[in-house]
């Protein structure tokens, strides 16, 4: 059934449909309406779950880690400084291989204090071992939450479902809410390999030595390094599992596409704009305008940021003259993290062909600075015409 609601409600409905058993969260703008909505579902009995209000984001994820270890399907959500405050537990959740799903409602980080959208919060968590997926509209938010629980539980790795604060979280648009029976058929109950059990007591994630050891059964057990390597290995093979998730989802719900990238008018394009989140849909409008001027340009949205779909990205950009990467975050002191990752993928996969596209990096919408479509089109046109700057170029800066 189609409804008109905001992005936070889309996420909350997805979590309810997935029958999450434990939700622990601490409110922070612009995530607050999402967790408020979930607490209402639990309070009214529409959702059979434990809603645990906590005193901080660090505790929120700690509760999820405990609940997930005990075998519950768990969910949390946060934004900006809340996510940063979680950081230690973020690393813990992936190292412990717990399939927690967390919505990150993207917001700028302080200082200075700012409640508006950019993506510095989740990008700064790039190296934590979580899967990161970015959404462009409400249909993607609700669908991605449902896929995320399936995928997280399949590969035992936690997932951040990221969507732009306000621009998506507080904006209303129509989207389809899948039927409960269909979601139940897609997503079976969570059955962990091991769940905390008083009859089978165990220590989880205590001091693990630099080298391998012999366990109580006389078996050779991993050292720290093996455990961390397996996280990396499984993240890389997650790309396969993600493709499977997408396929399964399409079978059950009749929608979906390429799980990793969303190309638009790229096939015959000489230039491709690249980004993550709602800006890539806005860029479609710019691309349509520039196409009318005869400029062969397309846009590619990157859905998965970690694991990084390097092959899919390089494949889509093969033979292109130039790539313009739009980002709402920066690896301060160098350039946008996506631009760096993308260049690395191009170098790896396209350098042997002897033809590498040029790469420019444009920074936009930091701290919620409005990105006017007209300005975006003009900047894209200028970047296609000639390289704007060697350093990342900040759109709309008023210095």
């Amino acid at each position: 059934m189609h409804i008109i609601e905001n992005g936070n409600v889309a996420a909350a409905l997805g979590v309810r449909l997935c029958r999450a058993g434990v939700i622990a969260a601490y409110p922070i703008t612009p995530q607050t309406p999402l967790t408020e909505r979930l607490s209402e579902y639990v309070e009214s009995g529409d959702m059979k779950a434990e809603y645990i209000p906590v005193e901080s984001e660090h505790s929120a994820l700690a509760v999820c880690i405990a609940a997930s270890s005990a075998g519950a399907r768990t969910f949390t959500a946060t934004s900006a400084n809340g996510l940063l405050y979680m950081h230690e537990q973020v690393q813990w959740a992936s190292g412990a291989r717990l399939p927690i799903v967390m919505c990150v409602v993207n917001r700028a980080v302080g200082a200075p204090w700012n409640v508006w959208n950019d993506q510095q919060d989740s990008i700064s968590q790039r190296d934590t071992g979580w899967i990161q997926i970015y959404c462009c509209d409400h249909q993607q938010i609700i669908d991605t939450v449902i896929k995320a629980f399936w995928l997280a539980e399949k590969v035992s790795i936690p997932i951040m479902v990221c969507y732009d604060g306000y621009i998506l979280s507080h904006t209303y648009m129509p989207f389809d809410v899948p039927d409960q029976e269909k979601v139940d058929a897609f997503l079976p109950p969570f059955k962990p390999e091991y769940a905390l059990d008083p009859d089978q007591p165990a220590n989880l994630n205590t001091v693990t030595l630099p080298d391998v050891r012999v366990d109580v059964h006389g078996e050779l057990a991993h050292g720290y390094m093996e455990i961390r390597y397996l996280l990396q290995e499984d993240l890389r093979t997650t790309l396969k599992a993600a493709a499977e998730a997408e396929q399964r989802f399409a079978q059950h719900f009749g929608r979906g596409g390429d799980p990793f990238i969303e190309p638009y008018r790229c096939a015959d394009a000489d230039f491709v704009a690249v980004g993550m989140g709602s800006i890539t849909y806005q860029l479609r409008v710019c691309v349509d305008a520039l196409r009318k001027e005869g400029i062969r340009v397309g846009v590619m949205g990157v859905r998965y940021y970690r694991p990084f779909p390097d092959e899919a990205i390089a494949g889509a950009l093969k033979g292109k003259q130039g790539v313009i990467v739009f980002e709402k975050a920066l690896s301060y002191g160098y350039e946008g993290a996506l631009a760096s990752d993308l260049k690395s993928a191009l170098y790896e996969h396209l350098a042997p062909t002897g033809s590498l596209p040029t790469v420019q990096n444009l920074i936009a919408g930091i701290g919620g600075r409005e990105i006017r479509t007209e300005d975006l089109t003009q900047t894209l046109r200028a970047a296609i015409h000639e390289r704007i700057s060697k350093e990342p170029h900040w759109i709309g800066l008023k210095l």
Partner: protein
Amino acid sequence: MGTRNYRRKTSHSEHGPGDGGRTGSWRVERPVLDQSVCTPCKRNKESCFICWLFCPEIVISRTIPPTFNLEYCKGCGICAEECPTKAITMVDEAKFAEEEKE
């Protein structure tokens, strides 16, 4: 002309009319003082000023009688809540709009 030559590289603001502009227009209710109950008015002595102390917008004067700067008062009602003698009442702004019309 941009902000390149602004004297700081951090966010730094001092008290005064803020980014919200004339915030008095946000008011739904207006604080009204009953001087016959207000402690400093009754004693005609500098005293109490709990309203002045608690006002988050610094729009109440430390005078006899205390006055409200309605250009910036948002009508939060904290003064009325905190006043120990209940000398301040919050009155529906619509009532004043009607009076001003007349």
